[in-house]
Structure formats: structure tokens, C-alpha cells
């Protein structure tokens, strides 16, 4: 219990471009380019030798940070790390010229070199460079950044994000966190705890103690707060949690009102949620800090799972007004709604992508559950997964990867977190200490 409510800091890690990098190379990236939209079948071979330890105290970090970089790049499905026992050349000094032929021979298309030192104030200083081996040139400037030693994993994620971004032309997603529900105990008495971790499953911290059921958390646009549903009073009600202070506040509900399915608006001040009274569930909007709820839907049908468009002007949600669960889009002020889901089966839990171009959803059809994506107008539906029970997609900050809940069948069934890229490739289980459900991805950390 002593580590139950840690103070979580999302500190900015400052970047400094290395002044000592090679002269700016104006040539185009040439072959060193991955177009993510195509769906990558053959990952790009990349060499990431252990970083150089420039002070003795940095030795462990030099090895471990490089390992984080490798795991991030390989985990994206876009890269393949060449094992170090295949290396011909060695990086013995961060500033020595790169012997490109050594890396060409083993077919490394990209080379990442780095160094780590522990400064006199105890901070870690990480430098790195990225090389396009076949063009025999650096790709972008070298970077240097400093942070506390406990942030060493984040520094690895920062390096990997820079590599990903330079090679794909898109922002990365590795330096990010996931809020989710840790699950333990038998299926008919599940203990659920609000939890937060790095996107790759490291640094899990528990935010609630398991005495009340908690469901479906969502980050604020800058990651400083989390909305979720808790049964702390015995009835489902929306709460907001300050991630830094670990303080929880009930949003407030009327008598005989149950509230759930909360999501932030892009302004970080507005929340949309479902309210259930007299058996009927509709969508409402209100300021996070308190204020009068505004009704956005008014039908006898179930309306829930709202999600704002990135510009805040529209809301996608699910409704069974047609007789089955389907997806609709309405103005952020409510009013008439257009149905966008048109395929067979039932559609729920729509989530607008951070790029604004796609809606991720859960689909149920013929006894199977799928995670899928469709364009905002409902066209080009693609199913990415299929299982006994997949649900609750959440977008990576760059809109290229989706994390979701997969639950197995039967008395011993357990929920786990999985990720898949939007081409349907690279399905992976995200490690959690026990069961896990309802992941929600943070924005990229500062």
C-alpha cells in the first residue's frame, strides 16, 4: 500500500541540437524512407549498437537505453534490429567517423549511435545520431538531451521517436503513457484498479486501491487528468483524477442519475458523457470544473460512447435508435445525427483519430468481435482484428496504432491489452502485471 499513490511527474525532457553534427546535408532522404500508409510487410533493417558510456556510472544506462530504442523500433513493426553479433564494425567513440562499409555489408539501412554520460549534477546526458548507411550521410542533426536518471527509459523513447519521425516523416508515439484498468481475481468478483504505465508496459503505477469497480478511463488532451467511471458510492459515476496530485473529484450527478462513458473535449475543459435516468441513457456535455449539463441527445434509445472530433466541432457516438447499435455523428451542440456505419452487425465504442481522418470502433458480427476503422463518412471500413471479444480501441498519439482490450472465453477468461497498426499488421500483446482492460493512450509527452 505504501506505493499505491505515487506522485507521477510528466516532466518535459529538453532537447538540444548538437552543434557538432556534420554539416547540414541537403540531400533528400533517398532510400531511407518508410511510407506507413502502405502497411509495411518487410521491416527496415536497422543497427542500434549499445550506446557509448562516457562516464563509468553511465555504463548500465548506455546499454539499457539502446535496448529501449531497439524495442521501440522493432515493436512498431516497421524496423528489424540487426543482432549485435552480426556487427562487423564497432562504435568505439561517439565522435569518430562512421565506417559506412561495415554497416552496408550487414545490410543495415539505418544506424543509430549514441552516448550517455552522468553529469556532475547527477543528470543523465544522452546524445544520438542517425545515419542513412546507403547514402553515407547523417539523417538530420545529432541531438542531445538531459534528464534525471529515473527518466532513462523516456530518454530511450525520445531517441526512438526521433528516429521514427525522421524515417517515416510522421511524429512518433513511443514517449507516451497508457491509463488502463488492472484486473485481478475471479471472473465473477473481478478487482479493478485504475493504473497508468508507459506505452510499452513499463513503470506500472496504481491510482486506485481496488475497493470500487473502475471503468474506461480517458486522458485529457495534455495528459494531466484522467476521466473515468467509479462505483465508489455503489453507483456508477464519473470522476476526474489529477494525475500529478493523484486527487479524485466526482463530477457530480443528480439523484437517481448514473453517469459513465466520459471523454474530454479537445479544449480540456469540456466533458461529454452518458447519463442514465429512468432506464434511458443519453449523452450530455458539461464543463469539467462544474456547471449545468447540456443535453445533446434526446431519444428513448441508448446513446453512449461519445468521442469528439479533434477540432471539437463534432461528436461521434453509438446509438441503438435503429434497433441495433450503430455509429452516428452529430454537432458538438447536439441535434440531428447522421448514421455512418452501414455494414452488417453492430458497431460501438467509436473513437475519432487524432488526425481526424478515421473512426476506430468495435464491431460485433456473427458471434465475433472486431476492432476496425472507417473513414469519417463511413466508407472504406476495414476490420483489423477478430476474436472472441475485442473491444474499446484507443489511438496512439500519431494515429497509426490502436490499443484495445482482448478477453478470452470461459471461466478462466482474462482480459489483456493488445495493439495493432491501422493496416491490420503487427498485432502484439502489451505486457501488464496481471489482467488489463480499457486502455487509453496519452498524447506524446512534452
Amino acid at each position, binding site marked *: 500500500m505504501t506505493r*499505491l*499513490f505515487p*506522485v507521477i511527474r510528466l516532466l518535459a525532457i529538453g532537447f538540444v541540437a548538437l552543434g557538432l553534427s556534420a554539416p547540414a546535408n541537403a540531400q533528400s532522404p533517398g532510400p531511407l524512407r518508410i511510407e506507413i500508409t502502405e502497411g509495411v510487410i518487410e521491416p527496415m533493417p536497422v543497427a542500434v549498437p549499445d550506446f557509448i558510456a562516457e562516464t563509468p556510472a553511465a555504463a548500465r544506462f548506455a546499454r539499457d537505453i539502446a535496448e529501449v530504442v531497439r524495442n521501440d523500433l522493432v515493436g512498431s513493426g516497421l524496423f528489424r534490429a540487426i543482432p549485435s553479433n552480426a556487427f562487423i564494425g564497432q562504435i568505439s567513440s561517439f565522435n569518430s567517423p562512421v565506417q559506412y562499409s561495415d554497416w552496408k555489408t550487414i545490410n543495415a539501412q539505418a544506424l543509430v549511435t549514441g552516448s550517455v554520460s552522468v553529469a556532475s549534477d547527477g543528470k543523465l546526458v544522452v546524445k544520438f545520431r542517425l545515419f542513412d548507411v546507403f547514402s553515407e550521410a547523417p539523417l538530420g542533426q545529432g541531438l542531445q538531451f538531459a534528464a534525471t536518471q529515473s527518466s532513462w527509459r523516456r530518454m530511450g523513447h525520445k531517441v526512438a521517436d526521433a528516429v521514427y519521425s525522421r524515417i517515416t516523416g510522421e511524429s512518433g508515439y513511443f514517449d507516451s503513457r497508457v491509463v488502463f484498468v488492472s484486473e485481478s481475481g*475471479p*471472473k*465473477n*468478483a*473481478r478487482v*479493478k484498479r485504475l493504473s497508468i504505465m508507459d506505452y510499452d508496459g513499463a513503470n506500472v503505477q496504481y491510482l*486506485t*486501491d481496488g*475497493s*470500487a*469497480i473502475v*471503468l*474506461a478511463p480517458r486522458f485529457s488532451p495534455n495528459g494531466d487528468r484522467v476521466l473515468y467511471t467509479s*462505483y*465508489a*458510492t*455503489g*453507483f*456508477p459515476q464519473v470522476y476526474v483524477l489529477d494525475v500529478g*496530485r*493523484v*486527487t*479524485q473529484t466526482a463530477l457530480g450527478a443528480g439523484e*437517481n442519475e*448514473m453517469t*459513465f*462513458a466520459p471523454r474530454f473535449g479537445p479544449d480540456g475543459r469540456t466533458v461529454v458523457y*452518458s447519463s*442514465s435516468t*429512468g*432506464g*434511458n*441513457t443519453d449523452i450530455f456535455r458539461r464543463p469539467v470544473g462544474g456547471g449545468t449539463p447540456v443535453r445533446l441527445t434526446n431519444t428513448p434509445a*441508448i446513446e*453512449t*460512447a461519445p468521442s469528439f472530433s479533434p477540432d471539437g466541432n463534432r461528436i461521434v457516438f*453509438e446509438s*441503438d435508435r435503429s434497433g441495433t*447499435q450503430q455509429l452516428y455523428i452529430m454537432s458538438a451542440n447536439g441535434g440531428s445525427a447522421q448514421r455512418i456505419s452501414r455494414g452488417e452487425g453492430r458497431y*460501438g*465504442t467509436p473513437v475519432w483519430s487524432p488526425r481526424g481522418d478515421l473512426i476506430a470502433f*468495435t464491431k*460485433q458480427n456473427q458471434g465475433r468481435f472486431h476492432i476496425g476503422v472507417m473513414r469519417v463518412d463511413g466508407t472504406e471500413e476495414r476490420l483489423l482484428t477478430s476474436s*472472441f*471479444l475485442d*473491444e*474499446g480501441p484507443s489511438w496512439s498519439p500519431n494515429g497509426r496504432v490502436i490499443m484495445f482490450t482482448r*478477453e478470452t*472465453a*470461459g*471461466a478462466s*477468461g482474462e482480459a489483456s491489452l493488445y495493439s495493432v497498426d491501422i493496416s491490420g499488421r503487427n498485432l502484439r500483446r502489451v505486457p501488464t502485471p496481471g489482467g488489463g482492460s*480499457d486502455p487509453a493512450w496519452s498524447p506524446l509527452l512534452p
Partner: protein
Amino acid sequence: MMSRIRLTLAALGVLFLGACAQTGGFNASPLGAGDAAGDPASSGFFQTSVGDRVLFEVDQHTLTPQAQTILAAQAEWMTQNADFTAIVEGHADEQGTREYNLALGARRANAARDYLVSRGVASARLRTVTFGKERPIEVCSDEACYSQNRRAVTVLQGAAGL
């Protein structure tokens, strides 16, 4: 700061446990002293002899004739035992998304509640709550279990012996 947070959370925990004790948990009400199922005025009798739950068809919240019979008996019992109030819990099976199932459970709880009111139970004595698919009573993944999990359970509280 930290100690204040812990205190707040501890208080919430107590509140929840309190609610849990009142509703008797989700599976079965504990039978206290003087609450033997043989006593027709006991919650144990209500649970086992009157029947504390009604079942629903897949994705439905309309009451079957069998459910109406049970609810009519519940209403009659509650009319005779006016000290009790009740929370009507609505539940769903696992075949559905989490938040939809919360809304579906709310529909089921309300359908049962409305029927009890139509049979003379004062609405002030009834409250509803949905648990969606969070508290299945049977844990297999086929219809034999699902049919038991799609339920509305009338959980008595507030009388002597509880």
C-alpha cells in the same frame, strides 16, 4: 498532501464497503441472526422462496411472463414488509461492449422497478443501479451461463436483521 489523499480514498472505500454490505454483495445476501429463510418476513425468504431475480432474453429488457409473475410476488412481499427498501440491480452477459452493457443493465433494472411500482410498491422505496457485464454470476462463455447473467436482482436493504 499524500496523507490527505489516502484519507479521502479510505473514506470512499468505507462508503463503498458500506453500500456493499447493505446490498449484500452481488451474489447472495448473507443471512444474519433472525433472518432464517424460513421466516416469511426475512430477506432470506424473499431471496429463496419469493425469488429475488428475473431473467431476460438476449439484448432485451422486456419482461417475460415468468419475470412478471416473480415481480408480482416480489411486490406483494414488499407491500407486506413495508420496512424494507430495495436496490434493483441490472446486469448483462459478456456479449456486448462495456458501456452499451451499462446502458442495457440500466434498462433492465428500470423495467423491473417500473413493474414493482405498477404493482403497488412506492417508488421512493426503490433505487436502480446497473452493473453492465461487470458482475456475472456464472462464468462460462455459453448460453447456459449467459442466460443466468442477463438479470435484474432485487436486493433488499434497510430492515432489522440486515
